[in-house]
């Protein structure tokens, strides 16, 4: 078959950073709305706090570095970082922890390494890891989804809790807060309960936790939109979720009473959000086609390993950070063959 090739000039796609980041934000909307639906206004307030801090920090650092902050802020990358961080945080986290995380992401992880395009680590995940390690109690105490607690957190309640502490809510706090499904599963398993017993608890839905699985579905929708628009490649999400399913399935097949159903891994915690929005960060991920498959698959594997035998309930942040370190090496060994060169010609 013959393709006709036009002579130059060719039509340009007009893709720039701002456009790409704008599409990422758009793709995050359905999942964000789902989080808001199940966990109340805290999510929105967190996004506001993190976004404001991120933009302010970016502005201050760029001024200190003697650069014009306007183009860097207009490209929306700081906002995307803050948004992703805010989605990963518990909805009623005290405001100053969100501020610390967001400022850390922009100032230390992004700008000190040279700004957008130079950071070796994913800023949102590095900040999440900082907060998780520094404030483990606050960071692992989530809200229960509203379908379970029968209480949807109003804007006023969320505002009060975030800015004045959880004492502001009084006894309501204990009613509406609890461990995440992954944390719940972890504690129960550590007490040698069988999966079939654990699953009888009302916190479980069809696959993951009730409410949680729907949040995952809506993030999946946004992720597929990004793949369709060509903003991200299908390789990293597919290989990450595929590897996670495969390993989880293997262990489930060996012993279904101590290893949860594979889909549980997929629809719990940050797996889907991570696969489509975080692991695919164009700056810190692997860039070669084969490299992306390896990179994604290793993240999936690490997520399972850390969730099952590690010290924390969820593992997406740590897995992504670990593989960020490995990405340059993976890229080095998976350089595609240059057109015209023989297979054995490159190192």
């Amino acid at each position: 078959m013959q393709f006709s090739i036009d002579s130059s000039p060719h039509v340009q796609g007009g893709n720039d950073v701002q456009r790409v980041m704008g599409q990422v934000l758009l793709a995050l909307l359905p999942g964000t709305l789902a989080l808001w639906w199940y966990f109340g206004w805290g999510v929105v307030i967190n996004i506001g706090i993190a976004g404001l801090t991120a933009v302010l920090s970016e502005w201050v650092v760029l001024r200190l570095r003697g650069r014009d902050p306007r183009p860097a802020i207009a490209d929306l990358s700081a906002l995307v970082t803050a948004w992703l961080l805010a989605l990963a945080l518990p909805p009623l986290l005290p405001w100053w922890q969100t501020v610390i995380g967001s400022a850390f992401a922009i100032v230390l992880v992004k700008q000190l390494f040279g700004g957008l395009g130079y950071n070796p680590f994913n800023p949102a995940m590095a900040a999440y890891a900082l907060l998780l390690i520094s404030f483990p109690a606050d960071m692992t105490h989530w809200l229960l989804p509203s379908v379970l607690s029968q209480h949807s957190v109003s804007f006023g309640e969320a505002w009060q809790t975030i800015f004045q502490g959880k004492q502001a809510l009084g006894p309501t706090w204990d009613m509406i807060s609890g461990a995440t499904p992954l944390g719940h599963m972890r504690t129960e398993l550590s007490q040698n309960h069988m999966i079939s017993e654990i699953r009888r608890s009302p916190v479980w839905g069809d696959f993951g936790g009730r409410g949680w699985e729907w949040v995952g579905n809506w993030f999946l929708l946004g992720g597929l939109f990004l793949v369709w628009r060509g903003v991200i490649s299908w390789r990293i999400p597919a290989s990450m979720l595929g590897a996670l399913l495969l390993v989880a399935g293997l262990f489930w097949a060996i012993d279904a009473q101590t290893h949860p159903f594979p889909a549980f891994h997929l629809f719990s915690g940050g797996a889907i959000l991570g696969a489509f929005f975080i692991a695919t960060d164009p700056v810190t991920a692997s860039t070669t086609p084969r490299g992306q498959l390896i990179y994604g698959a290793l993240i999936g594997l690490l997520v399972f390993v850390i969730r099952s035998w590690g010290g924390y309930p969820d593992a997406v942040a740590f897995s992504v950070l670990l593989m960020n370190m490995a990405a340059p090496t993976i890229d080095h060994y998976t350089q595609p063959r240059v057109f015209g060169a023989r297979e054995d010609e490159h190192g």
Partner: protein
Amino acid sequence: MAEIDYRRIVSDGLWHNNQALVALLGLCPLMAVTNTLVNGLGLGLATTAVLLGSNVIVSAIRHWVRAEVRLPVFVMIIASLVTAVELVMHAWFHELYLILGIFIPLIVTNCTIIGRAEAFASRNPVAASALDGLSMGLGSTAVLVVLGGMREFIGQGTLFSGAHLLFGEAARHWELSLGDGYQGLLLAILPPGAFIGLGFLIAIKNILDKRSAQAARKAETLEAALTSPQ
């Protein structure tokens, strides 16, 4: 032999060739024990004592040790001194000795000490070597103290906690605290905090150096303009 510039030895040790900030030597204890100011100070002083002693001895025997065997000889000297310091701390600063633990014997492997023995003490007279050892040691100690203070303050909101370990019971009330309401940033106490903190200290030193170099250049051009015939 060339004239020895004592002022330069001191300024090199404390600032321009600071072993922790410029040479980046001896980072293992730097990272491991600087979770509080007092721990940093304790290890810094122990290292300084060893460095001073080893520089003096190495310099005193420099004409009698053949080049081929100098490294084993240096290591023997340093190991003996570290053992002495360890015994002293065991006897008089027992609690601090327990806290610093393995890092006291590990002073033997601190690259600063053998580095100074090789680079300075084996080629210079005793007095200069002693001054070099003292200023290099104090330079490292200063970094240990500042880093320890930073990490302690951010990580648990106190300063001088455990001062009695080093200065006796009277120092127990030296501890400054932000109060119980302060929820520490745990990361600062953990190893990443040490790396990030050291990075900031190095950056601050580089900024200060750049500023003073700029100021010096400006003064030079000004002077040149003033003394020129026009």
